[in-house]
């Protein structure tokens, strides 16, 4: 079948060319660094019922980024600073806020409002706003790449170090407390990890779509895996596959990377939901 052969050849050649491009190589490396932390963090967010908090942290990051630009600072620095502060707040006061979702939602809305205000004063270009909101992984600089690698490694190390007590505290808070775990301390530490991971993830897919690359693989992994370690690996693996496939598809179709990543994340999740509903599965 000569046509099939030709298509295959063309694809391989296309891939080779794609990986020879510097900006594509950087994009693939950044995507890998972020995916490896986004997946496992998402797994715990879903396990703990805190996905909305993760979503809100990303929006808070938008305000941090635009505020930083206004002050002449690097957007990533502002983004990280504000998500970490908000994460600390959520961790410390989270347990005591009765209507947590409403409080988080209010903070989220207020942040976007301020973000808009900062943009208004900065008279920033629409491209910059769009990059913050929807991501611009193809324009990632070598410096940003190294920052992302460091943040991800740090987050992953911290998350894995606390994963055992975090698991217990998520499944059985009373038991964890009885065994001497500090629920507030653990929750705060975890929210700091979430904040940093959110900041890193927003560099790939933008603040509005962090949910897809973080919570999507985590939720899918929870539905597919029967043990926790397997779940963490599946979550990281899925995030990596979604991010890389998204990049490749964007390269070949010229559609935005974030669109493809989001579409893949939702497709994987929907598939897992259908699989999990099948009787006798597992």
């Amino acid at each position: 079948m000569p046509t099939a052969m030709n298509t295959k050849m063309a694809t391989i050649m296309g891939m080779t060319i794609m990986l020879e491009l510097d900006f594509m190589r950087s994009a693939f490396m950044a995507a890998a660094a972020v995916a490896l932390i986004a997946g496992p963090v998402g797994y715990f967010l879903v396990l703990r019922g805190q996905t909305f908090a993760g979503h809100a942290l990303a929006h808070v990051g938008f305000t941090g980024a635009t505020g930083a630009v206004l002050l002449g600072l690097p957007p990533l620095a502002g983004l990280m600073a504000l998500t970490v502060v908000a994460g600390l707040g959520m961790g410390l006061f989270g347990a005591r806020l009765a209507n947590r979702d409403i409080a988080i939602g209010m903070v989220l809305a207020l942040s976007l409002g301020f973000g808009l205000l900062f943009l208004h004063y900065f008279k920033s270009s629409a491209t910059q706003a769009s990059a913050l909101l929807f991501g611009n992984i193809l324009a990632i600089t070598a410096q940003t790449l190294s920052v992302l690698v460091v943040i991800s490694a740090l987050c992953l190390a911290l998350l894995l170090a606390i994963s055992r007590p975090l698991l217990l505290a998520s499944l059985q808070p009373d038991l964890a407390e009885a065994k001497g775990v500090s629920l507030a301390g653990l929750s705060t530490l975890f929210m700091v990890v979430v904040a940093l991971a959110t900041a890193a993830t927003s560099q790939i897919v933008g603040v509005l779509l962090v949910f897809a690359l973080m919570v999507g693989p985590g939720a899918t992994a929870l539905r597919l895996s029967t043990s926790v370690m397997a779940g963490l690996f599946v979550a990281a693996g899925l995030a990596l596959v979604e991010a890389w496939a998204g990049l490749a598809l964007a390269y070949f179709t010229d559609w935005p990377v974030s669109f493809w990543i989001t579409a893949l994340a939702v497709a994987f999740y929907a598939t897992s939901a259908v699989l999990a509903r099948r009787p006798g599965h597992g």
Partner: protein
Amino acid sequence: MTVVAMDRVSLALAGRTILASVSLSIGTGDFIGLLGANGAGKTTLLRAILGMVPVTGGSLTVFGQPPRRGHAAIGYMPQGRANLPETRLKGWDYVAATVQGQRIGLPLYGAALRKKVDAALGLVEAQALARRPLAELSGGERQRLLLAQALVDEPKLLLLDEPLLNLDPGQQRRVVALVKHLHEELRVPVVFSSHELNPLLGAISRVLYLGHGEAAIGAVDDVITGPVLSRLYNAPIEVHRVGTRIFVMSGNVEVERDAHRHEHEDGHHHGHDHHA
């Protein structure tokens, strides 16, 4: 031997006195039914023994020492408020996650720990259950896994908080029979909280009844009486015996039934309450 000793113990939560001047001693052979209406302080008392609630007056010792969190000799089954997202996580992993789950590091389980988990699951005959996803199990089946969890470290004291909550009468009978069997087989003292007395009759050696900050401890026949319960409920109480069953009535209302309804409403709260 005395396992838990309380001498005029007072407990307070957020500045409010929950129990005042409670004295009792729990021995190795005891199977204590911890009774009282919803909000009487059963959970608070258990948490004090676990070192999670500070003692505001009197003295409380556990195995001869002040209570402290993370005591390996105490098996604890918290009042059912597990967080269960949509997950395929298996019962076995759920039990394993609790074993030394306070330790830093990864949730990886070595051969020794696996053996302990399997042995505990064997004690409650839940090996088959443990192979199934948690989300598919019924309330009674999950209670059994929680009980297995409490047994993993070969406890010298079992504190079980409302294991009968939301179970139908048949399941309640099976849970009580199982705990009685474990109590005798493992020679482990048990404190079993419940707001219903009848399912526990025949299994417990003594009853500890809480109400209005006070406590009464003794044999069922000595504690479950009109005068004692009238004091604890701060209302005129009549005790009626029908066959082997005992009905505690306040006017026309059966007080345990009433408590049960409240507890259901409460259960809804707990589900949302523990995300942080």
